[in-house]
């Protein structure tokens, strides 16, 4: 084989890979392109024009209309509050429980660890019917506590953060005791900072699963005012059938926080997803 031939072959392979990459990109981007097109185009004009692959009679105010008139602002607020409560709650309960399992000796420790892991058998899909009854009995239907309290602890968080804590050198623990650190001081000034990468990954998972929730908020609310943004999307597709572009614009708005996360925290997002992609 001459040098020229190898060179040619490499250029041919490069061309082939670029073609593959572009083809795959089109498959992934086409649905998103359609969403944007349909959100901005006037719905009736778009259908009448035979669904072309370009904007038809663009209505640029659709995003402000979805935000102001279709209730997206309120729904986004509910989603933000519920997600924040769940993230803070999961962080605190997971760090404390993980600390107990990693650094403390207490009666029934092994049994309690089994109790934590056992919750993996009982995801919200299984307990849905029963938890709806509990929430109703507590008078928590249509409330922030009803939307968030069942998710304030998670086995995955305890498990991941415990792994992070167990990597903290034993000598550090002993040295900290000598310095007169209490357990709380050691937890928040030494253990948590050292376990930052794992905690960061966990918070990404926590954010994604809380923000994307559907089946629980769908069943824990029956009033429009308490809908999270994911549920509001369904309401828009079923109640505003003449203005479906509101729902399409709403989907773009609902995805924005995740797009920002992907842009600014790409590294944490990748490590979070690879650490324990249990829920999407």
């Amino acid at each position, binding site marked *: 084989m001459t040098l020229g031939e190898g060179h040619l072959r490499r250029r041919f392979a490069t061309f082939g890979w670029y073609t593959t990459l572009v083809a*795959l990109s089109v498959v992934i981007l086409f649905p998103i392109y359609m969403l944007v097109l349909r959100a901005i185009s006037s719905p009736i004009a778009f259908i009448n024009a035979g669904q072309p692959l370009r904007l038809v009679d663009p209505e640029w105010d659709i995003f402000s209309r979805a935000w102001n008139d279709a209730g997206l602002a309120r729904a986004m607020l509910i989603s933000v509050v519920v997600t924040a409560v769940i993230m803070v709650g999961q962080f605190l309960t997971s760090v404390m429980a993980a*600390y107990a399992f990693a650094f403390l*000796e207490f009666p029934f420790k092994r049994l309690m660890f089994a109790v934590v892991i056992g919750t993996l058998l009982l995801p919200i*899909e299984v*307990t849905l*019917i029963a938890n709806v009854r509990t929430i109703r009995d507590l008078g928590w239907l249509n409330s922030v506590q009803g939307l968030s309290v069942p998710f304030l602890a998670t086995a995955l968080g305890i498990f991941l953060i415990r792994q992070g804590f167990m990597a903290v050198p034993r000598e550090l623990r002993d040295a900290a005791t000598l310095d007169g650190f209490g357990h709380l001081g050691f937890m928040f000034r030494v253990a948590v900072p050292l376990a930052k990468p794992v905690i960061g990954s966990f918070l990404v998972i926590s954010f994604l699963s809380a923000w994307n929730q559907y089946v629980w908020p*769908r069943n824990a609310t029956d009033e429009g005012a308490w809908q999270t943004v*994911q*549920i509001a999307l369904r309401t828009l597709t079923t109640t505003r059938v003449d203005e479906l572009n509101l729902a399409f614009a709403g989907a773009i708005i609902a995805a924005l926080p995740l797009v920002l996360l992907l842009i600014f925290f790409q590294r944490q997002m990748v490590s979070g997803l690879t650490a324990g992609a249990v829920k999407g």
Partner: protein
Amino acid sequence: MTTTLGGAPDRAPKRTSQKVREGLLGWLFLLPALAVFVAFFYYPLYLLVDMSLHRENRFGIGDPPYVGPSQIVDTLTGSDFIEGLTNSGLYMVYTVPLGLVLGVLLAVAANRRLRGIRVFQTIFSSTVATSVAVASVIFFTLVNPEVGYFKDVSWLSLDNPDWALFSVSLSSVWQNLGLTFIIVLAALQAIPAEMEEASALDGYGPLRHFWQITVPLISPALLFLAVVLVVHALQAYAQIELLTNGGPGTATETLLYKIADPQGIRSIGTKASMSLGLFVLTAVVAAAQYGLLSKRVHYGD
């Protein structure tokens, strides 16, 4: 125990009280998580059993009478449950293998030194920015029978009872792509470069290299992904509700759709019994999941 304590009379009391304090602290730290687990994970399991042993009357008035396990048996052998089970199973068949193959394809294509490869990697990851509801609205623009772009393509038609579930499942395949891509790419990038050179020296062609070197090395990641995708398939709900409402007829009602029962056509006892069926199914998947999780920890950082 008591003899050792007696053997060190002056140190033992202090140690014991320290031990008691540490034990109390351990329980104190565990308590918040435990309270949530008891109230919203274990107590509901008891409630489910209780609900499925009682049969509510049509109007839900008064205490429902005890009927024993007959309601569970009737429900889990009934055609409604079997249909849900079949649809959930089909959803797995439609989404898991295709998801894995496409994930590997994307990752292999994007794992090379080419100019602008980061752009392609970002595009391939992009679907992780969608929730199930958002992905469903996106596919609404494609497959909705009235306004969808592909409304005239028969094998994508949501009006066709034989193809509707498959059509819905494509939204999940698409939505899962970002996640599968990210995980397979991470696994590919963890393969040491020497492996590449060694197999080239041994005269392996690209296909032989892929099957004999790459696939075995990324198989733990693929196994992990398979479990994740199975879990996602079992959770399929929003895409059904947004795209078909379970129809045509009941052709796209998954197990979870029947349990959540948005039209409110099933009794509490039936839904509770179905939940117990889903619980058994989940237990099998969770066992696999836990096995993988502890294995990852074994090899992990």
